């Protein structure tokens, strides 16, 4: 069933920018990463949820820049940051247990493999790295992304995804290049191009905006969704259509490209339904949006807006509840009643 009854159920405002969120499916709490450099536990099941900050260890207090990604692997959280570091955290003690100097530039995203054994990061050093969760050991480092744009400016490697069967990794950069990798051998197996997601303004403003901000494989691993923002006339603002492209993973053929001019901005996150029939996207410009598309026809089935640009989301196991990390707030949405 395609959800058509998306409703906001709760909103918790804050002063900071929340970039990433992970849900504890068993205990009604979420964890999120903040612009104040902290990781927080947030008990959304309580009447008045309070933040509880994770703490450092010894002289190291945690991250020293925006926390851009957080995943759960067993009884640990692993977070990444623009400070170039990965940190392992003990969930029960809310304390740092391992710290890795992981990349030479901002870390943009991380994902955990379906079996929870590995975590995969991408950063503005344009490298994708695979880490062993149990030890923090680097297993592989690879790249198919140019450090410079065609216009001689630093490029950025924003997005990474792992397929549900654990066989494929996708990485996407600022200029719209996606590389697909064998997740076991780390050899490149394919690529797709989504250049419309990168706007270079050669005349009026002479810089660029955009990039691939989100990637997600369908549950059967056969399709790859790529999200960002379409062409922008005035690149001072995120005043362009939210853009989603869907490719056949094996052939690289573009199956769909969708643009939404009603709710403009970046698509920051993509979630495929378990049956592959619909896709949920979230992101925004100054404010946020959540949009649900029919994955076959591309029809926009349902859409909601909210105050605050959405940076990340986490769904519970039943797909009934959706927790959103956004600009100066966390929100909870329900999709329970669907047609």
């Amino acid at each position, binding site marked *: 069933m395609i959800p058509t009854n998306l409703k906001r159920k709760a909103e918790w405002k804050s002063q900071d*920018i929340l970039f990433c969120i992970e849900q504890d499916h068993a205990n009604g709490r979420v964890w999120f990463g903040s*612009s104040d450099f902290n990781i927080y536990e947030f008990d959304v099941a309580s009447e008045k949820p309070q933040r509880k900050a994770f703490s450092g260890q010894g002289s190291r207090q945690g991250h020293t820049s925006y926390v851009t990604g957080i995943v759960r692997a067993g009884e640990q959280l692993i977070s990444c940051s623009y400070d170039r570091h990965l940190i392992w955290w003990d969930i029960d003690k809310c304390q740092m247990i391992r710290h890795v100097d992981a990349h030479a530039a901002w870390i943009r995203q991380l994902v955990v493999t379906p079996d929870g054994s590995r975590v995969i990061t991408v950063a503005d050093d344009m490298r994708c790295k695979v880490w062993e969760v149990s030890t923090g050991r680097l297993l592989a480092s690879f790249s198919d992304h140019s450090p410079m744009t065609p216009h001689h400016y630093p490029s950025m490697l924003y997005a990474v995804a792992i397929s549900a069967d654990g066989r494929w990794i996708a990485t996407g950069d600022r200029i719209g290049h996606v590389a697909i990798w064998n997740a076991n051998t780390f050899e490149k197996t394919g690529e797709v191009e989504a250049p419309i997601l990168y706007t270079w303004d050669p005349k009026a*403003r*002479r810089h660029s*905006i955009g990039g691939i901000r989100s990637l997600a494989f369908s549950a059967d691993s056969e399709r790859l969704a790529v999200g960002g923002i379409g062409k922008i006339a005035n690149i001072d*603002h*995120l005043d362009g259509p939210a853009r989603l492209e869907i490719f056949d993973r094996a052939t690289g053929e573009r199956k769909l490209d969708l643009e939404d001019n009603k709710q403009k901005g970046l698509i920051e996150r993509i979630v495929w339904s378990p049956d592959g029939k619909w896709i949920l996207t979230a992101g925004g*410009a100054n404010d946020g949006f959540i949009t649900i598309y029919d994955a076959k026809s591309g029809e926009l089935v349902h859409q909601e807006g909210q105050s605050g*640009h959405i940076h990340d989301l986490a769904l519970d196991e039943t797909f009934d509840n959706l927790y959103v990390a956004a600009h100066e707030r966390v929100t909870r949405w329900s999709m329970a009643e669907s047609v």
Partner: protein
Amino acid sequence: MNINRRTLLRAAGTTAVASNMAALNVLSQPALASELARGDKSVIVLWLAGGASQLETWDPKPGRSTGGPFGKIKTNIPGVEISELLPKMSSRLDETAIIRSLNTKIADHGQAYELMDVGRVGEPGVHFPHLGAIISHELGQLDSRVPDYVSMYTSTEGRRQGSAGFLGARYNPMFLTDNMMPDDIHRLESMSVVDHQDRAALRDFFAKRFIRDLQNPSVGSHENAYARVHGLMSSDTLFDIERETSAARDHYGPTQFGQQCLIARRLVEAGVPFVRVARAWWDSHGQNFETHRELCADLDHCMSALLDDLKQRGLLEKTLVITLGEFGRTPRINGSLGRDHFASAWSCTLSGSGIRGGTVYGETDLDGQTVIDGEMNAGDLFATIFTALGIPYDKEYMVGSRPIPIADFGSEPCREVLA
């Protein structure tokens, strides 16, 4: 006393050759000493159009809610730290003064541009000249065979030519927009080189006789104008960076801003007193941090390359490099991870001629919201620039019967950043 700058310089040169003691006597005259202090100085303005963020450049606040994600890095000046986005400049601050305390109040592009272009708020009925016009008026040579003022602004957003105002069109810039080579200064294709030279020689022959026989200043001025046009026509080579070695071009890098900085160096080396290179467009209402990653990389490389090149050629001591825009950006980060217009507490830099390098002047509060020490306005900045160049900042132009000081009424130079 109305002293002609060119006459003074020539007189001083002649006197110096004749007698060292006489030269010292000449230097004791304040007016001439001021003229000589200006010497053959030049100015290059790196105009950060649209408004660069002070927090991502010269006044970082990492760890504060307003600070953004970037860190700060140490520089070659003990105790001075700048944004990590400027790693090359971090090792080159010994020739640069950072001013962190501009409060120019106007946060609208058009009005702020005007303010930072003329150094004062406009008045009805008075056309104030912009900085380049004043500098070219003060430092330019009447019989110069190169342009006095070249302005490069190839992006279209925010582009303004500016006006020489009451100084007259003579001090308007050679304004380069579509490409980096001036239009309309080439010999007509329909005319051969020989024909062109012959015509010039014939005109020169009659003109010299005419001047000799008539002894009229207006005729002399007319002749100067012809010579100037000929000079400008031959100055097209200054804009041709293919005449540089590949190493020199590589030094400035492949971006348009880099190429224009290289042209700027060629121009000041040839004696052009004022060059402005506009690097648009920093107006990062959305995605401020991504934009500054791009544009600061360009600024850091090109500004460093320019300072290095000027220094290596012995030009930096007589060239003032100003890095400035119309305003800074808000400490508050908006929903699009952008920063908006902000003129209450922002930064600029002055490098090279007349500047006490390695200094940081002024201070903002912990979040960068307000200036807490050393507040400067546009007039003060202009007074500082003029003083660095040896131009009396309280000099007055007469507009009709009204005296107008070249720096706004009540302005004071910032002595702390002056050598």
